[in-house]
């Protein structure tokens, strides 16, 4: 794959640097990221991430599937926030179709998205802390994450590859007892965040490893295309949920945490605060959950209820047609972006008027965020590279697609 051209040797004795290969199986690279490092003693002179080890050609596969068949593929891009990807994709297709989604489905989407954000941030917090040497946090985080995965299993039947959102609404009515379980979780979760913070926020070792480490200015972050907590950790105030709301996010009250220092600790603080804000949104969604249908009234696009399908001829015909022929989407193009736990997740879909997308492009947040790694690490210590990689919160499935 990629090579780092050696620095020219001018005369003997000047060859001070060496090339170090980190990954693709290094435990702190969160998957299969390979990083090429040129180091001078303990200092990083140059850094180049090498990606592509998980490339599966999802964008190409999408072009050969019906619109509804793409939903399960979107789970597999970012396996830590499948519901965010489901949401972004269905929103884009709904925009192409001009579909109106009933309020209950929209609120359920918000609720599940915030649970996904908590899930993703918990995995990040656990692994990031473990990279830096704090083993305990990992076990605590995965304890709460397990509960969230059980809730996902409850609504969708799957712990990780949920595919719960459909074009036009949700796949199923949320089961009995689901809301009680979420309410229970929302009740005790803030204490758990206190617990993580007790372990880390004031911990002198943690502070030494994160404060002032891998800094990045706001200008650099914007120029390099960083989004999400990586951008907000550098003091840029943007959150698509608040600024360009989708799926009725405008009806929720929440703060967007920002820290201006631009170091690993700032990004850590942003995400930990987001955990608290997300659980607040979950609580609001539970309290205000509207009643009504969970699917749009669009017979040719949304699958009919099982009950109707077995008793009404017309529903049976629609069901058969959607499954065998898909549904045609009017020609056009849309770019729909949502705030994923990692930043701006965008779907650019081009339709040529047939039942299969002409082109699906996923703008992945990590892919752009990874470009900031060189800026963060060059001229700093080798040991900080691990902290920097952790603070970007990369998921290689999303980067390579």
């Amino acid at each position, binding site marked *: 794959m990629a090579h780092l051209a050696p620095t020219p040797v001018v005369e003997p004795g000047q060859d001070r640097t060496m090339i170090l290969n980190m990954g693709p199986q290094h435990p702190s690279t969160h998957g299969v990221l390979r990083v090429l490092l040129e180091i001078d003693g303990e200092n990083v002179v140059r850094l180049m991430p090498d990606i592509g080890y998980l490339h599966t050609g999802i964008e190409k596969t999408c072009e050969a599937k019906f619109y509804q068949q793409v939903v399960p593929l979107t789970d597999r891009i970012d396996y830590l926030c499948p519901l965010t990807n489901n949401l972004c994709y269905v929103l884009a297709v709904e925009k192409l179709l001009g579909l109106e989604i009933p309020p209950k489905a929209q609120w359920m989407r918000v609720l599940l998205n915030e649970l996904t954000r908590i899930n993703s941030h918990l995995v990040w917090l656990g692994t990031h802390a473990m990279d830096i040497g704090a083993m305990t946090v990992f076990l605590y985080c995965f304890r709460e994450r397990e509960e969230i995965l059980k809730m996902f299993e409850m609504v969708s039947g799957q712990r990780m590859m949920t595919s719960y959102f459909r074009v036009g609404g949700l796949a199923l009515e949320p089961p009995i007892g689901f809301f009680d379980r979420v309410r229970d979780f929302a009740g005790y979760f803030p204490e758990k965040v206190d617990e993580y913070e007790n372990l880390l926020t004031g911990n002198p070792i943690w502070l030494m490893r994160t404060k002032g480490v891998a800094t990045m200015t706001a200008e650099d972050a914007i120029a390099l295309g960083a989004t999400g907590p990586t951008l907000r950790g550098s003091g840029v105030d943007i959150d698509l949920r608040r600024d360009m709301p989708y799926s009725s996010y405008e009806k929720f009250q929440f703060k967007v945490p920002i820290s201006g220092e631009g170091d690993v600790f700032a990004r850590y603080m942003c995400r930990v605060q987001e955990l608290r804000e997300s659980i607040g949104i979950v609580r609001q969604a539970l309290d205000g959950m509207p009643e009504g249908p969970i699917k749009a009234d669009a017979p040719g696009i949304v699958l009919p209820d099982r009950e109707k399908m077995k008793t009404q001829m017309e529903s049976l015909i629609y069901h058969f047609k959607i499954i065998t022929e898909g549904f045609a989407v009017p020609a056009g193009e849309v770019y729909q972006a949502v705030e994923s736990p990692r930043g701006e997740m965008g779907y650019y879909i081009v339709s040529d008027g047939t039942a299969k997308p002409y082109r699906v492009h996923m*703008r992945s947040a990590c892919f752009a965020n990874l470009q900031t790694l060189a800026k963060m690490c060059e001229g700093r210590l080798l040991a900080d590279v691990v902290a920097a990689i952790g603070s970007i919160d990369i998921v290689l499935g999303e980067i390579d697609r």
Partner: protein
Amino acid sequence: MPLAPAITDVEQLKNHPAVARLLDWNPNVIEAVKFDRDEMTINVDRSALREACALLREDAACPFNFLSDVTCVDWYPAEPRFEVVYHLLSIPKKERVRLKVRLNSSSPNVDSLCSIWPGANYFEREIFDLFGVRFAGHPYLRRIMMPEDWEGHPLRKDYPVEGYR
């Protein structure tokens, strides 16, 4: 909710900040405009792309200072075959605009935006890798997803979904 028809008349769209800025600078660079599904698309002349982006980035009223995404669409066998698509975002004004450049299959070249937004680097490498479009002035135009010795560009429409066996 039926879809509103797309607006393609420059006169009706000249109030959009990006269109206004480009018209003000040089009306000839705008090849076509489209306002569809609440999204603004501007087709820009290939040779003027980099200057247009630099201009939009520095616009005082509505700076499109963030490059969200760069991608490409292959319209094989039609000509011009490739359409490179840029999504710009204005962080202060929360406004989006889509710029497009059309490229013939005989010379799929366009200026790189790396000098304006270094973040364009990976996106352009990805397009080079998967579509075979070249970006003039890119600092490191190598394959990024596929192995270095891969033949062909997988996202082109004439490349089979199952690959060559």
